[in-house]
């Protein structure tokens, strides 16, 4: 019963094919290590959007409560933000640059990038440039 409830909730909140981005078997899934831009509404009434881009650190698959962690360095400090994928406040998840397939070897987590950012194939320094390029093309 709970599984069917969960599936129904996911389907209902599955805005713009988000499930396909993170489902384990999906062909267009984003692999941890990719650079991702998440846009979030600050509140239901205010149209202002908060964007945060960074390296996708891990995907936690728990049905409707699935979350992704995105890490970036802002003004020298590392910041990690955890987003619930199916939240209506998260308006858009966009892949800015996918990592070479096979980087995470099927794992959901590449948390070691916290301690060793130099071993990231897509460096944290390139995130800002990708964001600027992305806003230019829009």
């Amino acid at each position, binding site marked *: 019963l709970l599984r069917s409830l969960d599936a129904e909730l996911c389907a209902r909140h599955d805005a713009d094919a988000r499930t396909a981005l993170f489902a384990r078997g999906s062909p267009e899934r984003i692999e941890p290590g990719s650079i991702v831009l998440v846009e979030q509404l600050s509140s239901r009434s205010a149209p202002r959007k908060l964007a945060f881009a960074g390296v996708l650190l891990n995907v936690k698959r728990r049905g409707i409560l699935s979350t992704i962690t995105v890490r970036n360095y*802002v003004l020298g*400090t*590392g*910041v*990690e*933000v*955890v987003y619930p994928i199916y939240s209506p406040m998260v308006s858009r998840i966009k892949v800015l640059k996918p990592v070479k397939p096979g980087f995470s070897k099927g794992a959901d987590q590449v948390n070691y990038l916290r301690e060793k950012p130099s071993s990231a194939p897509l460096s944290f320094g390139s995130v800002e440039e990708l964001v600027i390029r992305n806003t230019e093309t829009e």
Partner: protein
Amino acid sequence: MLLLKSFAKVIDNSGALVVEVINVMGGARVASLGDEVVCVVKKARPLASGEGGSSNAVSKLKKGDVARALVVRTVQPVRRLDGTFVKFDDNAVVMLSKQGTPLGNRVLGVVALEARQKRWAKIASLAPKMV
């Protein structure tokens, strides 16, 4: 999650560099993002006594000074009402006067959004980037 004896980095130009928390305002045991703490300066920038010139902040804090501060970054993840969590790589504070206004006049570094949400508009306006 700062409590008694926690060290935090100071990210404004009030002169202090590292502070130790000695009290959390409002009676809670733990201070999180956007909470006010009382702290003692453990390490401060050396006061350039001879240099008149351009000093940005009026009152420079020195080691041993007790002052209030606002927590703007915590390593402990903090849940926001929309279900997102935010966590930083260090604990950081911005020094405040007793009236609640910032002691420095520049904030250097990223600051959490909770600063604006919890009525600290002055610091939110000084912050170069908010996450």
